[in-house]
């Protein structure tokens, strides 16, 4: 091998990786770019097959967004989603934080297995449970209300967050609690007064992830809720923004963007922690 060949090979490899990155970024992000353009194009521009769809053939417009917020229940749906989100986050934290901590500190070989078992219930899909749930929800009298979602969503947020927090609490050295207990705190006290205050990152991760799961959920939402004013965003946009056969694409795409991008931005900050949860001990 000559130095020239070596140099050429090195450059080719680097260029190759760059090309792969560009390729996938375009493929994966294109639909969102498409949502962006569609949201701001006038209907005349949008529905004219002669136009180049990649360009703004008429100046961009805010009319779809205005229609979305003024003439549809989009704002209501956002509020509904936020309402459910906040409550589900609260319930999840109350249940998953102590459970995750206990699993992290328990000695004994089956603590890990129990943790995995709890995590696995996250994988039980809504599409197995939604039919019996529809009847349970009706019999509990919360059919067609947001409370049905508040009740049912923790069934998948708690398992994942427990697992996530278990992994997180394991990274906090036991020495801190040992020192606290020598200083006079009880085990529970050490948890509340020493561990919790420094666990902000882990808790925040659980909060973000729970909120993301809530906004993503569709199956229970479409099953339990029938009144358009009670929809969450994930359900309302696909089902309600279609009047008969007419799709209000401009407004729909705007809605999709608004409901996806902000969450994605926040999610991106915590991605490493989520991944740690997903790798299920296969990566130490």
């Amino acid at each position, binding site marked *: 091998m000559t130095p020239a060949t070596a140099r050429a090979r090195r450059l080719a490899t680097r260029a190759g990786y760059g090309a792969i990155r560009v390729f996938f970024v375009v493929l994966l992000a294109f*639909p969102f770019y498409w949502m962006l353009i569609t949201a701001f194009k006038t209907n005349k521009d949008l529905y004219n097959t002669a136009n180049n769809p990649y360009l703004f053939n008429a100046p961009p417009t805010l009319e779809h967004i205005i229609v979305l917020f003024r003439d549809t229940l989009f704002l209501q749906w956002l509020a509904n989603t936020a309402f459910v989100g906040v409550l589900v986050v609260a319930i999840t934290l109350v249940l998953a934080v102590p459970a995750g901590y206990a699993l992290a500190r328990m000695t004994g070989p089956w603590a890990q297995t129990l943790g995995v078992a709890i995590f696995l219930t996250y994988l*039980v899909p809504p599409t197995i449970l939604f039919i019996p749930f529809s*009847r*349970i929800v009706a019999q509990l009298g919360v059919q067609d209300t947001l409370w049905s979602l508040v009740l049912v969503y923790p069934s998948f947020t708690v398992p994942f967050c427990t697992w996530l927090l278990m992994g997180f609490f394991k990274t906090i050295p036991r020495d801190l609690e040992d020192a606290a207990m020598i200083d006079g705190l009880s085990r529970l006290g050490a948890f509340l007064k020493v561990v919790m205050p420094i666990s902000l990152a882990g808790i925040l991760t659980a909060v973000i992830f729970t909120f993301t799961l809530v906004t*993503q959920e569709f199956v229970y939402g479409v099953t339990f809720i029938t009144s358009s004013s009670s929809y969450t965003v994930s359900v309302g946009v696909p089902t309600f923004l279609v009047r008969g056969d007419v799709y209000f694409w401009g407004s729909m795409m705007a809605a999709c963007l608004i409901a996806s*991008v902000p969450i994605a931005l926040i999610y*991106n900050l915590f991605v490493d922690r989520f991944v740690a949860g997903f790798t299920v001990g296969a990566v130490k």
Partner: protein
Amino acid sequence: MIALPAGGKGRARWSFVDNERRLWPAMLAPAILYIALLVGVPFVLSLFYSVSNATVGSRSIQFVGLENFRRIVESGTFWLSLKNTVLITVVSQFLVIVCANILALALTGEFRGKWLVRFLILLPWVAPISLGSIGWLWIFDSIYSVINWTARAVGLLGPHEWPIWLGEPTLAKTSIIIVNVWRIVPLATVIILAGLSSIPQDIHDAAQVDGAGFWRHYFEITGPLIMPITLVALLFGIIFTFTDMIVVFVLTRGGPYDTTQVIASWAYFTGIQGGDLAGGAAISLFLFPVLAIVAVVFLLFAKRAEVT
């Protein structure tokens, strides 16, 4: 002399908030109880409904044995939906693993704009599935599809060729596969990326010094070492795709004429829209075997991680 906590109250506190054997179960119990109730009970109910004649409106429910299952097995749509589910899952996850491995390789190491790239790549996974699917609904539109427009502009389509992505069975299945690949690749990629990062740099250095070229290095060293984590990513992808109804629901509603039904969507249409709770429950139970297999594999992983 050390003053020991004396008195009744002190002693009771010691026995609970310090007694780990009581404390841990107490902290665990609420979560486990909740999960058991909200996952266990409906699941058992599902089994029960599947052998009953429950409908959405029925007041009383009777046991009917395996009648529902017989009806399902005799229904053409069921077998079609089973075939579709398997096909879509296998094809999409194969593509996901290949793409994710390639992309993960390109994402190790430093490069400009890493944060932005990661953000853009994660979008399909983080966005609500229904909303991402709506975006694709627009992209696959029968009249305004940007794919068709671009293909024609580039010369790939003739003047009389205009694929109706969601209207023709094979194309519709392809569309569903595309959307599933699109939304799972980000998750698989970050998982595999974590696996790649866990390989010590020394190993790569040693392979380089030992003379391994690019392909040997990847297939004999890197690949085998990330096999466990790739398997994890695959298992997640299988679960999320096999049991999904949302993509099909949004894109095709199972059409045209039920040719793109998958088990989960068929269960929905039968049970909720059709009111036949028993039938729907029975159909949805066919999702369980795959779930069980995946769960077992995960548990084996966990056991092995404990042992090493």
